[in-house]
């Protein structure tokens, strides 16, 4: 049976499109953005996350690990990620919830059951479901069928995507999507490659494709100081986005170091950027507004 790997389901998502929504986070992403705020969404396999603050160092994980990957060193629980195969046995036994699994397989039916729970809130608020990630279109076969089911049920659908997918996939997804939340990070191709590890030509052309198809689009622009906050970058962004007929608004998403602590839970490190000042945010908004765009801060 067709299944998708999901790392989070967030109810009462109020910043991922119109109304009250449930956001489904699909695991796996082709991009490796330095500032990624969902680092647990990057790999396309379940991963064990360790919340040190919840841990009481009881040693249960050390005992149960079949790979002998966990040990206590200097009164700290250490997981050898080379040995760990993310089997989840420690997660099951951990009494405090300090060890959690990011990534669980769902069938369409199982996911729909979760979605149905908040139906009264979507109906009341004009909300619905947002498919997010990671990059949801990496699991496009599932996503398309899932979106189709949602449409059959009369639920509003939004897809939050990096745009890094084939044209065919884009076209297919577009059929069942009421709104795209389309991430544009950096206009400069070299910088894009450096900071995300992929080229941006496909992303830019896919936006045009969606626009031509008449899709409703909100562009999301993560504002990262030192990466894309210079005037030239902002103007390039404004100029590009203003060429589309169907981009309804541009959302500026100020950088937040949320990913740093999440990366630590995966025993990874993430660079911490500076948080944009209100002054910078105002300046960016002002610049973008020069291009006749409806600019909003936040999702």
């Amino acid at each position, binding site marked *: 049976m067709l299944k998708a790997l999901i790392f989070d389901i967030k109810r*009462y998502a*109020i910043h991922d499109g119109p109304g*009250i929504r449930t956001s489904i986070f699909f695991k796996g992403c082709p991009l490796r953005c330095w500032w990624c705020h969902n680092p647990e969404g990057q790999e396309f396999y379940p991963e064990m996350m360790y919340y040190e603050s919840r841990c009481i160092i009881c040693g249960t994980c050390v005992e149960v690990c079949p790979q002998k990957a966990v040990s206590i060193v200097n009164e700290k629980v250490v997981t050898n990620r080379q040995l760990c195969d993310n089997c989840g046995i420690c997660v099951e036994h951990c*009494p405090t*919830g300090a060890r959690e699994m990011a990534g669980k397989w769902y069938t369409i039916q199982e996911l729909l059951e979760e979605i149905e*729970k*908040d139906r009264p809130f979507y109906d009341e*608020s004009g909300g619905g479901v947002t498919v997010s990630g990671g990059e949801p279109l990496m699991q496009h076969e599932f996503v398309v069928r899932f979106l189709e089911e949602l449409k059959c049920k009369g639920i509003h659908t939004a897809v939050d995507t990096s745009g890094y997918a084939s044209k065919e996939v884009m076209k297919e997804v577009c059929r069942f999507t009421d709104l795209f939340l389309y991430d544009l990070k950096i206009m400069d191709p070299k910088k894009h490659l450096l900071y995300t590890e992929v080229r941006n030509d496909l992303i830019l052309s896919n936006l045009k494709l969606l626009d031509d198809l008449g899709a409703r689009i909100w562009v999301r622009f993560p504002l990262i100081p030192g990466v894309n906050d210079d005037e030239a970058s902002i103007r390039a962004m404004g100029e590009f986005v203003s060429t589309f007929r169907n981009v309804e608004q541009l959302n500026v998403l100020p950088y*937040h170091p949320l990913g740093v602590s999440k990366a630590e839970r995966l025993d990874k490190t993430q660079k911490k950027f500076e948080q944009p000042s209100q002054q910078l945010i105002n300046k960016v908004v002002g610049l973008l507004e020069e291009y006749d765009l409806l600019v909003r801060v*936040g999702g």
Partner: protein
Amino acid sequence: MVTILTGLNRRISKLREQSLRTPYIDPERATLITQFYKSDQARGLSPPVLRAMAFKYYLENKTIGIEDGELIVGEKGRGPRAVPTYPEQCLHSLEDLENLNSMKDNPYIVKDEVKKIYEEKIIPFWKNKDMRSMIFRNMPEAWMKAFKAGVFTEFMEQRAMGHAIMDDKIYKMGLLDFKRKVQERRREIDWLDDPEAWEKDQELLAMEITIDAMINFANRYADLAKRMADEEVDPKRKKELEQIDEVCSWVPAHAPRNFWEALQMYWFIHLGVTSETNVWDSFNPGRIDLWWYPFYKKDLEEGRLTREQAKELLACLWIKIHNQPAPPKVGVTKEQSNTYQDFSTPNLGGVDEYGRPVANELSDLILEVEDELRIMMPNLCIQISEKTPDWLLLKALRIIATGHPKPSIFNTDVIIMEHLRQSKTLKDARLGGPSGCVTIGAFGKETVGLTGYMNWTKILEITLNNGFDPRTRMKVGIETGDPREFKSFEELFEVYKKQLKYFINLKIIGNNIIERLYAKYIPQPFLSLLIDDCIEKGKDYNNGGPRYNTSYIQGTGLGTITDSLVAIKYHIFDRRTFNMNTLLKALSSNFEGEYELLRQILWNKTPKYGNDDDYADEIAIKLVDIYVKLLDGKPNTRGGVYRANLLPTTVHIYFGKVVGATPDGRKASEPVSEGVSPVQGADRKGPTAVIKSVAKWDHVKTGGTLLNMKFSPQTLKTEEDVRKLAHLIRAFFKLGGHHIQFNVVSADTLREAQEEPEKYRNLLVRVAGYSDFFVAIGKDLQDEIISRMEHESI
């Protein structure tokens, strides 16, 4: 009408500032009442006439004053923040008075002279004669044991039945009209065939005495205003004082003719009710934007009043209500509801008698007053029907989003169904609403007798100990068997039900006695006058006079008891993770040492109420269902019946203190869950999941439930966020929820306020059905609020 002067800010700020001072004990009422009871006048009178004469004596002789700048006049004590006491109901000991001075939260100033008066005059006369001593003397031994163990509390041990709410009759009839009605009724008494003729006549006579007393009291204010006007040099203030003279010469004797008089009318009535007996100020004007609107509209149309003037009058009334902390509570009652007042709750919104939504310029103006004044009383609430326009809800939510904990929000449509289920008329249902904190009342027609909280979690502890209470080391409950022998969860549940039934019945037995003591010794003729159908029946408010006579026992700790039973079902009977013996050992050791791991599993790896998880929520449904079945419809002694309601005030702190460790992973003495909210921190799936869980059981079968949600300010930054919150509330109400309230502050702000209370004296938080200053509520409750769920949406 005289022009009310500009400078609203100066006048109102000054009165507001005065109202934020620490209250002080005012011995005048105790002294005067004692004098009266000792005097020859008091001899040979029937109880209602005795009470009426005492009331009259107090109003005739008490000190009165008009503060600089006041437009609405009258105080229960000698001035703003003066707190009269009611020794005939609850006699404060010297030790009580001593403690009041040193209380960190909700303190009262008690001067040495007050203690001296108490020592020399008040205590010698009332010792062992006050209602409180009388009640404890009359309670059965089993009742006293359960009370001491913390199975339930008793509201009536220190106060008269509160939760009376005014309707619109005082705007249509003056007290002289009431007097004619009473006299007419007296003439109709059938002295030949009615065996209660004399009792009825005495009650009605008492009502008449209170009417004269009240009119005379208002005249004292009129005279004072006149004298002050004569001496006033400032021409603007002089005019205001002349206007006060005119207003007080007219109301309450006659029905009000304009907005100012309507507000002053209510205020005199409020003072009368709260001076007569201590109802902890649980009295309020009810549906204000419905009943005051015609006065407002007419005055505006006829050019007698501007919007700004109306606002100033409203602000003056708001401050008056805030000026009146109720008499200090002592003992368990202080712990169960550690507040200055038990709550004056005016209603906005809702529907009128034809079911049309109420939302007008006055509703809007009142919200503006609330927003600008930011004081803890009155406990303003707003009723939202499906028909209520969005603007009213949004206006209220914008205030809440700034961190102000009022108004609380109620579901009119469900409230009407609750009333109808209690066999009230459609009209009375539509014109009613929440009374004190969340419990419904038919305004002007009902005694809503809240009698005490029931500690559901304690009852589980007693069940798991076969009727024995580990804390007091007494056999408190009935023997229902060794839980280690139970073969199934259903068996445990049945046994819990038996134990619950035993305590409900025990509580009712106590209530039956207390109700009769009140009916006999503390009739309330002035309040009875105001509540239909006391005059027609010739019966007192405390004795079945009102049209509806409901009694409540408030269930508390739904989250903790549900999660505890769920943990037992899940781990002991379904998964067999461990057995009952291990659990009992873990509980009795308070999860110390080796049992900490077990506690972690109970806390982290167990289904919990509040997550939209049917496994857990099914138990909550069953619990509410059995509580309602065991209590609902049982007769009280006033011709009415019992109903269930689920709310806590601050009792979840006290109830937590008396309960040992519980199977949900809660340690001994920690608070139990609050209202119908999930256990603090157990809800991990956000507000929609909480709402789904809470709406799964039937609110209509109760007379009120309380859901408290805490939001951090970042979730309510934009107008769009506020709109989404409005949708959340509308969806909750469609799903059948009764009430919801919000705290919008960050945990960090609260921690800072704990560190530096001085800087946060203005910070109000929603506690449970009411709001209070955060710095005033006590460290343990502060901690509890901080740990309560914080719904972040990043």
